[in-house]
């Protein structure tokens, strides 16, 4: 075991900020290359004309998921040292529904609004102060929302535990579901108006 590198002391807090810039650069670069600096391309996902959002997201998840699993199996990466996101079932379900409404109305999610803004898209730039306003409203209302956003806590709970199968089996299953999803996405796109390009 010698990863996560930061947890194993390979570098300190100062150097971690240089890592932050490098990872951010890679993240922003990939989002823009995928076409996610363009709200028309993102929105086309929800009119079934261009399913790039689905393809990119699930390829990224399967890639990282498989990498995490293999690196932990060969003993390089200690999965228990990676921060695990706790599950709060009801707030995450309702928050997701609300997020989806905001996404198709605003045209971007938070990360894609950043690359849209930095590639000159005025609509992407405007999403950012909107997002700040929404977050500010939440912070101000927090004393009244505290009970709701902390309800149904399930702790660190993963899909393998939910299904009662080994972690590796769930990794394989999600990979299989993704492949079936890509095949279906290509069929669905044939009925749409075609992929959205730049301009």
């Amino acid at each position, binding site marked *: 075991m010698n990863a996560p590198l930061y947890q194993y002391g390979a570098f300190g807090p100062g150097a971690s*900020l240089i890592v932050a810039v490098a990872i951010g650069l890679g993240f922003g670069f990939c989002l823009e290359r995928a076409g996610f600096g363009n709200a028309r391309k993102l929105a086309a996902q929800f009119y079934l004309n261009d399913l790039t959002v689905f393809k990119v997201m699930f390829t990224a998840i399967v890639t990282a998921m498989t990498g995490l699993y293999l690196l932990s199996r060969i003993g390089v990466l200690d999965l228990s040292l990676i921060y695990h996101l706790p599950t709060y*079932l009801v707030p995450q379900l309702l928050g997701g529904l609300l997020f989806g409404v905001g996404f198709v109305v605003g045209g971007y999610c938070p990360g894609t609004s950043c690359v849209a803004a930095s590639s000159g898209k005025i609509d992407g730039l405007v999403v950012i102060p909107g997002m700040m306003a929404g977050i500010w409203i939440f912070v101000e209302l927090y004393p009244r929302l505290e009970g709701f956003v902390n309800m149904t806590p399930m702790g660190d709970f993963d899909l393998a535990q939910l299904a009662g199968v080994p972690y590796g089996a769930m990794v394989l299953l999600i990979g299989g579901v993704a492949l079936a999803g890509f095949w279906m996405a290509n069929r669905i796109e044939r009925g749409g108006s075609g992929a959205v390009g730049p301009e």
Partner: protein
Amino acid sequence: MTSRTPRPYWNPYFAGFALGLVLLSAFVSMGRGLGISGAVTTTVVAGVAAVAPAHAEANPYAAAYLGDGRTGLFKDWLVIEVLGVLAGGLLSAVLAGRFRWKVEKGPRISARGRLMAAFGGGAVMGFATRVARGCTSGQALTGGAMLSVGSWVFMLAIFAGAYATAYFVRREWT
């Protein structure tokens, strides 16, 4: 740089693979995934604290985002990462001849209408990221790759919410 013909986007599977490697490198180097909305929250809370310090201290949510030395690094880390995201998007767009000052919209809506929708949609989404404890990056991608049940529920709910709303805002996009 604005006169060049824009180059086409990457193949979606290639882009997804590259994005997955960036996410994996965050896990391997820092023991955490990607994120955006947490950094925006830190920025908002820092703004509130600058204008009304006592008010921010009295709010338990804001106080947590002000940092206590233990969580401070990660919060700062995320803010720096988002600055990288902005720079990465700019770099990619310029290199591909895709930098344009423009408003992305469908043909049936005015630029003004589209910008109002962008602000309103952004506000709804920002609020939702706090309810769900993250966005498409910090919750859906990061938690998705770690098989978190809450992250998968959040991700499927995003698609459900957006598909359910798409018909009503079709004039904005089609």
